[in-house]
Every structure is written in structure tokens, then in C-alpha cells.
């Protein structure tokens, strides 16, 4: 699966909203099997970059290819900072995603149940999704994404709205998803999480991708001044 669509190559990516240039001249490659954390100050363009790579935003300039092809493959998923659940049960939410993805009706329930079991929430599968706690909803969102068996998973600040216990659970699940073969790209401002999780860092500064570095090197000896300031906590 991963061989078919990765590496994802972005060249000269730029995106402009009115007067604001949110991304400029971004060149990057996402190789299969990576665990990538996208870091940067507030407003540096992390969320915009993720959305552009995932296809939610259309770049003003530049190209994105998947294993050399321009066609955007479907085998990707995204989990947002605040989980978005339909007004139905947790199980039904996962089944819905499977349905859109083309899963046969007869298989949906079984696959959905399995996904929910993997995130440890079988006991609340039949509860109304929106009545669950924030942490539980986020785990269901992960189950939903995981059930689609994506080659590439984007996560936009997945733990930022959660308390530490829930955040820990989410981190564990994301590690499991990666271990199962999905390439993961995550934005976060939780440096501890980035340090534990990532093997590669993309660092954004005012819309420019200024560093693409293996994680260890980034945290011990960042190349750019902005990155150093960021790690030192000087940048917001």
C-alpha cells in the first residue's frame, strides 16, 4: 500500500490568502514509514501545510506528487485538533467512514468494532459519540481513521485539547498506528511529544520550511537561529 503512493513530494509549494502568504517555497518529501512532527511558532503555517498536503486546501503555486504521480490517492486520513463526530453512535461514526471508503455493508460493523477495540473503547461503542468525553471522542476519531487503513495519516495538534491522561492514550494509539505500517505526519506544540514520537522534524518559520532534520539532531543542535529560539521557548 505504502509503496503505491509514497514518497509524497512537494515542490515550490506556496499558498496565499488575500494579502497573506501563508506558505512560501516549501520543498519536502515524506518517505514511507516515517514519523514526522511539524513544528513551528503559532501562525507559522503548520496547520495550513498539513491541510495543503492532505488536499483540503489548494496551493496557489507548486506541485504535490505521490510516488511520482499527480493524482491524489485516497489512502490518507486526517485527525483534527477537535474531533468531529456525527450525531450517531461511536460505532456508527466509524461505519460511516468505512461506507464512504467503499467497504461492503456486510463488513462494516465487524471492521468498525475491531477498530474501536484497538483503541480500547469497545465498552462505549454504542454510546452517542457526541456525549463522550473529549479524549474518548479523539480516540474514536483515531479508530475511524485507522479503520480506513491509510498509507498516510495526518494529525493536526491531536493532543492540544486533551488532559494529560487522554493525551497519553492518544500518543500510545498513534505509535501503534505507525507500528502497523502507516506513515504519520503530526503537528504539535508539545515538544515532549514531538521528541518521543518523531524520527524527522519539519520546522516552519513564517510560512517557510527552514529545517528538515532527523529528530535527534534537531533537538540537540538545530541548524537555524529561529529553531534554536523556538526550542528555547523564546518564540510563542
Amino acid at each position, binding site marked *: 500500500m505504502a509503496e503505491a503512493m509514497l514518497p509524497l513530494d512537494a515542490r515550490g509549494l506556496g499558498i496565499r490568502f488575500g494579502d497573506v502568504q501563508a506558505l512560501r517555497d516549501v520543498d519536502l518529501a515524506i518517505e514511507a514509514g516515517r514519523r514526522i512532527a511539524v513544528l513551528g511558532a503559532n501562525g507559522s503555517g503548520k496547520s495550513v501545510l498539513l491541510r495543503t498536503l492532505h488536499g483540503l486546501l489548494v496551493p496557489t503555486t507548486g506541485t504535490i506528487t505521490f510516488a511520482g504521480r499527480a493524482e491524489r490517492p485516497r489512502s490518507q486520513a486526517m485527525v483534527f485538533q477537535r474531533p468531529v463526530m456525527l450525531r450517531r453512535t461511536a460505532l456508527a461514526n466509524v461505519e460511516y467512514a468505512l461506507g*464512504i471508503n467503499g467497504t461492503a455493508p456486510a463488513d462494516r460493523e465487524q471492521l468498525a468494532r475491531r477498530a474501536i477495540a484497538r483503541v480500547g473503547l469497545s465498552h462505549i461503542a454504542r454510546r452517542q459519540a457526541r456525549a463522550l468525553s473529549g479524549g474518548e471522542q479523539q480516540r474514536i476519531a483515531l479508530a475511524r481513521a485507522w479503520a480506513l487503513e491509510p498509507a498516510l495519516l495526518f494529525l493536526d495538534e491531536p493532543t492540544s485539547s486533551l488532559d494529560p491522561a487522554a493525551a497519553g492514550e492518544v500518543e500510545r494509539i498513534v505509535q501503534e498506528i505507525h507500528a502497523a505500517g502507516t506513515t504519520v505526519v503530526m503537528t504539535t506544540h508539545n515538544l515532549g511529544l514531538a521528541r518521543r514520537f518523531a524520527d524527522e522534524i519539519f520546522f516552519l518559520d513564517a510560512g517557510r520550511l527552514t529545517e528538515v532534520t532527523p529528530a535527534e539532531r534537531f533537538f540537540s543542535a538545530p541548524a537555524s537561529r529561529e529553531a534554536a529560539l523556538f526550542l528555547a521557548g523564546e518564540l510563542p
Partner: protein
Amino acid sequence: MSDILASFALAVRLIAGADRELRRIVSLSLEVSLAAALMACAIGLPLGAWIAVHRFRGRRVAIVFLNALLGLPSVVVGLLVYLLLSRAGPLGSLGILFTPTAIVLAQTLLVLPMVAALCRQMVEDGWGEYREQLTSLGVSPARAVPTLLVDLRFSLLTVVLLGFGRAASEVGAVMVVGGNIDGVTRVMTTAITLETTKGDLPLALALGIVLILVVLAVNALAYALREWSARRHG
């Protein structure tokens, strides 16, 4: 005053005894209003939802036009439908004028803008909430319409109820296209008008009480639905 009290007492007796004429008028009213509400929703809900999720040239004009139709005076609708259905008019040979169908048609046209405008607003808000997630899952705007309509089912049900209430309260248009024919197109509102002008208060009062009860019940139901949905879904 004692006249009115006496009429009131007679009215209560008519209701309690399920007076035959009263029953006939009430059931016809409920039938046509329900049919009109359903038709208005069958057209208006998908229409409102479609406008909400699609970007097209002239979208803003469509929305403004839809909202403007909310203020359309009902007697104008009555006149338009009359001209349409009159034997001298384009649809005359259908022979629908002065039948319950004409009433359903007029009420549907009256309720349709309300349903479409409300639905558009609700779906647009819903689409705002869900757009990124649904797009991420591969749901196109067109495919999103049924999903959103189902997701908003409780809110939309209250829209249906409001539409029903509006249809049931209509007098002018119904009088014009229905003709208030005894036993055929006489509904609660037109019957109240007739009986009041005849000075025959007991039947008018009885009908008025029933009509108020219907409207109250509809609004209470809509309120209860909203509350239940909020508790269930958070």
C-alpha cells in the same frame, strides 16, 4: 359578557361531544396542512441543503431571494394560485380549483420558502462544522447533503412542525383558492371566519380552541424534540 360565556360553554360542549361537523372540519384541516408541510419539506429541505453546500454563481442572490420570499404576503400567494388554477388560467383544465388539492398547493407554496431558508441556514452551519472532516473522509458536497440532513434530523423535524403550524394557520390564501365550500374545503381557519361573521360564536369558539390547541401542541413537541436532542447528543 354572559353571551360570550354562554358561547364558550357551548363550545366546550361541542368539543367534548366530538361534534360531527367540528370533527369533519378539524380532520380536513389537519390532513391538508400535513400534506402541505410534507410536500414543502420534500422540496424545501433538499433545496435548502443543496444551496447550503454548493458554491455557484448567483448563490448570494438565491439566498437573498429565498429570504425575501419569507415576507411574501399570503394573499398574494392565494391570488397567484387562483390565477393559475382558474379555468381561465393555464392549469384550469385540471379542475383543481375549489378542491382540497388547491389548498395543499397554496399552503405548500407558502411554507416552502420558510422550510428552505431555515434548512439552508441549519445545513450551512452544519457544513461549516463538518466540512473539513467530511472532505477528509472523501465526502463530496453532493454526497454530504443526505448526511447533513440526517445529522440535523431533530432540528429539521422542528422545521417540519413549524411548517405544519404555518399551514394550519393560513386563512386568506385558503379562502381564495378553496372557496370555503361546506364539507369540501372548509377548514378550521375559514370556518372560524365564516361563523364569526355570521355571529355564530359557539362553533367559531370551538374551532378556535381546537386550533390554538393544535398550534400549542406542535410548538410543545418542537421544543421537547430540541431538548431531547440536546441532552442526547451534547
